């Protein structure tokens, strides 16, 4: 552990971490640029770095951008990232009363505490999950991957989980293109040499989260109104102490939801905001929706604790906790790091390095956030159409640099168009990414398991108790989703969105 800290505290990695956190905060603060978009586009930059630099840089960007969304949410009433919507509701109401700086101070302190809770829960639970994960064989891994895709589908589209599952299945279809891993039979390649290696999921990721956003927002030409003054920004740890119970509860909610595939910072912040409102004192509840500091604490602690939580399935099972973690997984894979149950055997000390990098990124986030609020206000006055235009070549580089292939750039462009079409049809896009990443795991492990089960009785399969539990969990996900579907649109909370990000 000490070795990991010594390594992360080297001047180069500290500079990189500070740069990553600052870039993340600015990126997250700019309306229309989400955390996942930042992570997806920066995968290309991480390919030019050595392993430790790439990990520190990506984790720092992740940490910074989750907080960054709060700045525009409070000051211009547009959430920089979707998870900042509750912060927008409360923070902007405070900003209108002249307390915008204080609201941001509370958001910074909440984010700082949230990151700590996430990291502590990650440290506490990694050994437990790893010891459990070592019991997973082919059958269990196939089921686990299916659960990941299905849960992501359910969580992405709460009103109509069926659409989330369909999106996940579309990802599976894409991932099965190329040589079959067992017999090397070509599948859906149509004689195109570039398809024989399969579809590059980094291109799909950049297309779905970068290009789709550009295609959706750039033609609109919308421009937010920029405030003239922010007010005094002092991160209020003392004020936060008054809401310590809410902070602790939100931290646990955020970290646990982060550990569930598909449940990202959005789920965390809304769930925590909702539970916080129900559990608030009558006096505090009266402020809810009109500018409550406790509500900001609930939302910001939860969405930042989500980072640590999302690392749990990512590092221990190789199943990304959310789309941003999927980008991190891609960056790791490009640096020849394949995480999963054997992470401690394959990469001794890597987990400690992750802990150290997250802690350092959190400390630097606190410092950078205070310094960057006022420059961010200046940035808000830049035309959004210019900002989105400048992202186009970054998306091209991101897709091209992985395999130095123009074909991948076209895949990225096509993914952007498909993402735009799917959004028009009101399908979620995050499950597609999980489908693309996890389908090879299903494909290979399911067929291996069928070979193992060959000639054995059903009782043998039922004796694999971990697999049986996972199978029941998979069935439960579908049954719960279908019951929700049966209630129809009247029973779902599918109402107009207030912001975007």
């Amino acid at each position: 552990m000490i070795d990991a800290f010594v390594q992360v505290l080297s001047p180069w990695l500290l500079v990189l971490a500070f740069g990553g956190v600052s870039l993340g905060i600015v990126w997250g603060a700019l309306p229309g640029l989400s955390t996942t978009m930042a992570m997806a586009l920066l995968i290309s930059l991480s390919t030019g770095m050595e392993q430790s630099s790439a990990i520190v840089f990506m984790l720092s960007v992740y940490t910074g951008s989750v907080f960054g969304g709060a700045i525009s949410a409070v000051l211009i009433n547009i959430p920089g990232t979707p998870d900042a919507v509750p912060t927008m509701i409360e923070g902007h109401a405070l900003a209108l009363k002249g307390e915008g700086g204080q609201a941001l101070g509370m958001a910074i302190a909440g984010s700082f505490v949230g990151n700590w809770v996430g990291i502590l829960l990650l440290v506490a639970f990694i050994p437990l999950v790893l010891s459990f994960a070592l019991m997973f064989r082919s059958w269990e891994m196939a089921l686990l991957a299916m659960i990941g895709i299905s849960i992501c589908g359910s969580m992405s589209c709460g009103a109509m989980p069926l659409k989330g599952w369909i999106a996940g299945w579309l990802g599976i279809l894409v991932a099965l293109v190329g040589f079959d891993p067992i017999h090397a039979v070509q599948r859906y390649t149509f004689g195109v040499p570039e398809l024989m290696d399969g579809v590059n999921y980094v291109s799909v990721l950049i297309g779905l989260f970068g290009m789709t956003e550009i295609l959706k927002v750039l033609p609109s030409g919308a421009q937010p109104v920029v405030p003239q003054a922010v007010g005094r920004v002092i991160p209020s740890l003392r004020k936060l102490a008054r809401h310590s119970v809410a902070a602790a509860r939100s931290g646990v909610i955020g970290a646990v939801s982060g550990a569930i595939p598909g449940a990202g910072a959005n789920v965390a912040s809304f769930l925590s905001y909702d539970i916080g409102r129900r559990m608030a004192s009558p006096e505090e509840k009266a402020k809810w929706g009109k500018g409550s500091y406790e509500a900001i604490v609930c939302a910001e602690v939860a969405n930042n604790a989500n980072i640590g939580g999302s690392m749990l399935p990512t590092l221990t099972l190789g199943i990304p906790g959310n789309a941003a973690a999927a980008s991190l997984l891609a960056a790791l894979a490009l640096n020849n790091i394949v995480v999963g149950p054997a992470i401690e055997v394959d990469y001794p000390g890597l987990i400690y390095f992750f802990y150290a990098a997250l802690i350092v990124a959190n400390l630097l986030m606190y410092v950078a956030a205070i310094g960057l609020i006022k420059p961010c206000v200046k940035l808000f006055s830049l035309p959004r159409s210019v900002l989105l235009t400048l992202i186009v070549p970054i998306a091209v580089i991101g897709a091209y640099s992985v395999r130095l292939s123009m074909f991948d750039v076209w895949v990225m462009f096509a993914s952007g168009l498909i993402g735009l079409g799917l959004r028009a049809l009101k399908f979620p896009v995050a499950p597609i990414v999980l489908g693309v990443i996890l389908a090879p795991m299903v494909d290979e492990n399911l067929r291996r398991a069928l070979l193992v089960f060959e000639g054995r009785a059903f009782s043998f399969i039922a004796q694999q108790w971990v697999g049986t539990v996972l199978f029941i969990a998979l069935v439960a996900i579908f049954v719960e989703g279908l019951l929700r579907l049966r209630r129809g649109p009247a029973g779902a909370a599918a109402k107009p969105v207030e912001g975007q990000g």
Partner: protein
Amino acid sequence: MSQSDHGEFAGEDEGAGYAAPSVDMFAAVLLILLSGWYSWEAWGFRMPGGWRTAPGLVPLFAGLSLMAMALVLGLTAWRRRGQTAPAPAVDAATQGDALRTVMLIGVLFVYLLAMGSITFGLRGYVGGVYLVVGAFEITTILCLSALMRLFWNGRLWIIASVAIGWTAFLSVTFRNIFQISLPG
């Protein structure tokens, strides 16, 4: 992500959920066609080692289960026919008009096509720094200028300066600092 007026959470992804019944029916038909074709292709794959390890096994399972889901989607849409469509789930500020979206897609298509076609390139040392001006640099400057002209309407010299400056920054950062090759 979608949420209610009161900040209630309805899902992680923005705007996902129920669409108008006709839209969902259209999606269901498209998905049935896609999954039908996918399953048909999977059925035709060679089976070198028996059905348990058949390369078409998982694709066939994925195709057929997607078809079942599409049928349920179609059925749900059919049951809701005649109902009023839910309010649009994405705020109006981000809804560009169709013509501008088509123009954007067109510019990006030409940009990528040109980047893959141009073989011209200049390489050399300028002030001790190895610089490359290839297809990426040329097409990116033109593309950024065109997009800013279409969607921003700034002054030409500002547009040109931003396009050249940003392209040069990206080129030097990726080619020289991170040693990552760029297209062209």
